[in-house]
């Protein structure tokens, strides 16, 4: 089993190329001009972060129910990739915000809740890193993976609960999306492309975890074998 496989990377690359073209071809925003093209990465990144954490949530529940190691691996991998995409969304949002809002960071509820979500899942990863025993780790991570997910709806709803600077839902909302249709098309292509990248990352991470687990479950030496009888000959005879 190779880390990346063959077909998925090709699909992802093709989709990314198409997405890039679509992003460049789509009309510039009336007010923001070309800057607005950052949207084609920022928005998919944010959504894929949500997807990652949703997978972590589902896999954690599945682990608590079935206790199969593969759910634990999936949860961990999805969380890692989710953290990556959260970071990407934050960085691109900052880059976008500097010219649009005039600052890198503002105390906008969506921004703050996103940052908190980032910290929560960093905590998730820190918890995993700190726990060695696989079973204990899987349990604690599963409980926390379920609990942590409350952050996601909070991030999504934050713009509605607290009226703010950040774009309110324009696509993911009931009714017709309030966005230019060619922009929407370009956005959707990019969402698709980054989803392929997401799948690629998660799969690679899961395979890495499988390999690691297999290495660990090879019947190694018994813990007790390291202890031998004392070797007393010749030791302090020389004094």
């Amino acid at each position, binding site marked *: 089993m190779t880390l990346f496989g063959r077909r998925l990377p090709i699909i992802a690359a093709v989709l990314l190329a198409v997405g890039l073209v679509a992003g460049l071809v789509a009309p510039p925003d009336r007010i923001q001009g070309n800057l607005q093209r950052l949207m084609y990465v920022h928005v998919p990144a944010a959504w894929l972060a949500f997807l990652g954490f949703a997978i972590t949530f589902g896999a954690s529940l599945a682990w608590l129910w079935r206790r199969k190691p593969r759910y634990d691996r999936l949860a961990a991998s999805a969380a890692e990739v989710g953290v990556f995409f959260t970071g990407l969304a934050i960085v691109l949002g900052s880059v976008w915000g500097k010219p649009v809002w005039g600052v890198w960071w503002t105390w906008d509820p969506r921004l703050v809740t996103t940052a908190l979500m980032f910290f929560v899942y960093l905590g998730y990863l820190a918890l995993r890193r700190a726990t*060695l*025993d*696989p*079973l204990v780790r899987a349990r604690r991570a599963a409980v926390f993976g379920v609990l942590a997910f409350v952050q996601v709806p909070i991030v999504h709803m934050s713009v509605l609960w607290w009226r703010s600077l950040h774009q309110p839902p324009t696509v993911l909302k009931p009714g017709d999306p309030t966005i230019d249709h060619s922009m929407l098309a370009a956005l959707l292509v990019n969402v698709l492309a980054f989803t392929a990248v997401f799948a690629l990352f998660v799969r690679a991470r899961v395979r890495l975890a499988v390999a690691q687990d297999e290495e*660990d479950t090879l*019947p*190694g*030496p*018994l*813990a*007790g074998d*390291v*202890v031998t009888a004392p070797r007393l000959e010749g030791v302090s005879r020389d004094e």
Partner: protein
Amino acid sequence: MHLQLSPQAELTDVHVDVQRTSVLRGLDLVVAAGEVLGLIGANGSGKSTLLNVLATLIPPVAGTVQVRGPVALLGHAPALYSQLTLRENLQFVARMTGRDDAVADAALATVGLAAAADRRADRCSHGMRRRADLARVFVTKPSLLLLDEVHTGLDVTSAALVDHVVDGVRRRGGACVVVSHDRDQVARLTDRVVELAAGRVAPAVVA
């Protein structure tokens, strides 16, 4: 002695990992009711781990564990709250198991700590803490008693306490598993001795 047909504990093909290293590997063990089983083995062979498995505190990665309780485990480190007095510690155990406070005082008197009952556990000597831990058994009256090097730190007069405790369990028809490195002690105290090596048990050759 009430001999019963169903065993007090039964482990079948048990595999146990601790922090990803394999400690027990395909272990089978039956502890009969009314039996006092001695368990010996080299340092690091997994005796304490096995007691934890018998107490259902560590789940096996494979195999089945069947145990009839109530179980008490006296491990290497006493289970005392160091800022509570000895009396408070034992009363806490008594209340958790729905017993009267008087039982706690009686237990302390039995182990010879009545006069030290109001001393905080962290102001006690090593042996006093070991004794206080032992006193728990007089409170909870377990039917499976797991003793991990229980003689450690007990002085000459209190070493007899162990015989007393083990006798009590046996008389109630329960079972004991006694871990010790002192082969004479084990041979004297137990009905049968097994040795733990290579992650399994085998009948021991007792000197």
